[in-house]
């Protein structure tokens, strides 16, 4: 397995911020990396496993994550612009105070993850589940939540976590 992403990180200068764009990463495993405050634009991650990666404070623009797994990943205080998450599993990860704008979570599952004080605006949740996750103080603006072909629209909420929790518990 070629780990293109890790090779890029290894080739960075000691204090250089990771600035990366227009690339596709396929079938990779990214382990134990500290890439805080990175700027990532127009990247596609397909079947990529992120394990113990610290992205704190990073900015992701137009990034797609398909069939990816995040385990013990820190996405705290990250900014996501137009992200797409499809068939992703996010486990034991820290998304506290992350901001998500104009994107989608589709067929994703959050397990034991912490989304406290995160924010979502102009976002869609499609068949996405939250198991044993911390969903306190989640802010939401212009959100669509799809479940069993039913769409719930939320104009504004400061306690969006309750709805997400219900969405997961109703089967």
């Amino acid at each position, binding site marked *: *397995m070629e780990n293109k992403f890790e090779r890029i990180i290894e080739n960075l200068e000691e204090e250089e911020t990771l600035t990366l764009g227009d690339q596709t990463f396929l079938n990779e495993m990214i382990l134990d990396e500290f890439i805080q405050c990175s*700027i990532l634009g127009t990247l596609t991650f397909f079947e990529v496993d992120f394990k113990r990666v610290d992205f704190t404070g990073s900015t992701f623009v137009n990034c797609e994550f398909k069939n990816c797994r995040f385990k013990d990943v820190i996405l705290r205080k990250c900014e996501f612009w137009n992200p797409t998450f499809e068939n992703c599993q996010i486990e034991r990860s820290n998304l506290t105070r992350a901001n998500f704008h104009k994107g989608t979570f589709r067929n994703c599952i959050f397990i034991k993850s912490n989304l406290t004080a995160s924010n979502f605006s102009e976002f869609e949740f499609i068949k996405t589940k939250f198991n044993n996750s911390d969903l306190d103080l989640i802010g939401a603006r212009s959100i669509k939540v799809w479940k069993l072909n039913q769409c719930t629209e939320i104009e504004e909420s400061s306690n969006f976590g309750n709805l997400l929790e219900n969405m997961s518990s109703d089967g």
Partner: protein
Amino acid sequence: MSKRKNTVLFSILFIFVYLYLGKNSNLRGTRRFFISLQIAWSLMFGRLDPANAKDNTIIPGAHGFKPPISRRNPNNPKLNNPALVGARQNTGKGVSPGANKPPRAPSGLYGGATGSGGSGSGSPGDDSNPNNPRFNTKSSDQCQNPNYFNQAQKNKKKKNSRQVNKKRVIEAYQDFMSKMKKKGYEVNISEDRFLELSTNPQTGQYDEKSIFETEGGLELEANGMVNNLRRPDNPKVDLDFVAERVGSGETIFIDHKGMIDFGSLSDKGIDISGFPSHESVAFNMGKDSVDQKRKFIGMDQGPASMEEVVHLYNFENIRNRTETPLLMQAVLNGAEQAGYMNGIIFFNYK
């Protein structure tokens, strides 16, 4: 296959070869023992070529290898990844196109073959449904083995660990102090204090984000707006700092926000035409900050009202300085739209 099974299989094979050589050859003693061992080893592992070796779970120590999703079930090609080995039929039933149908994923790399059109409960072969037990198989199999990460780590040779160390924070401190001097601020901030503030309260370690936050908070202190800057006592109050306002002595909570210049991407030849404008980013930051001011009100040792939460907007990274007045206005517009325009401080905008 477990190590125990491997050991049992290997032992049986070894005994068989040992007995066979005893009957059909002149080999005796240790020579027979070692040759039997060698033959048994070759029979068990010898046929594998290096490319397949890591996929074969028989090999002791192969736990560190992660079979990719597309190869999770080599015995059942139907379960393999459609994008890599051909499209798979959507097994969804009873879903007809209609106004109330969730939007489908655009086809492309993923091929649209496992979109959201499956049955609610998920068919056994459907990768798209997180309820599908197979969805969880990969990580649980690997992560139940405590050696999994260790082995992977051992195999990995990191040229460059990017974890922030004390030396890096001290360098940041020195840069910060000389920057403050250039700005004409008289600062009395010790290295130890800078180190303490640059420690992530959640992890107890230095990191880049905490250094960035510290620089903003201390600049506010350096220009005489606040003093006694520190991390909040209650970690649930998830704002960067707490401090006292100079003069009134009232407690305020501070959050430092930095603007990103997407030009840093286009410098590297990356197409940023589809990116949001800096203005729209600033507008959203202003809008979101109002929600953030509300979030922690009433918490133990948290802000009592929105007035107690201040947001610092740092435009240091914006290279085109003619842009900053527009961005400042955009932040204010966003905050106005969200209904609260107080508690905003701009810096590094000139």
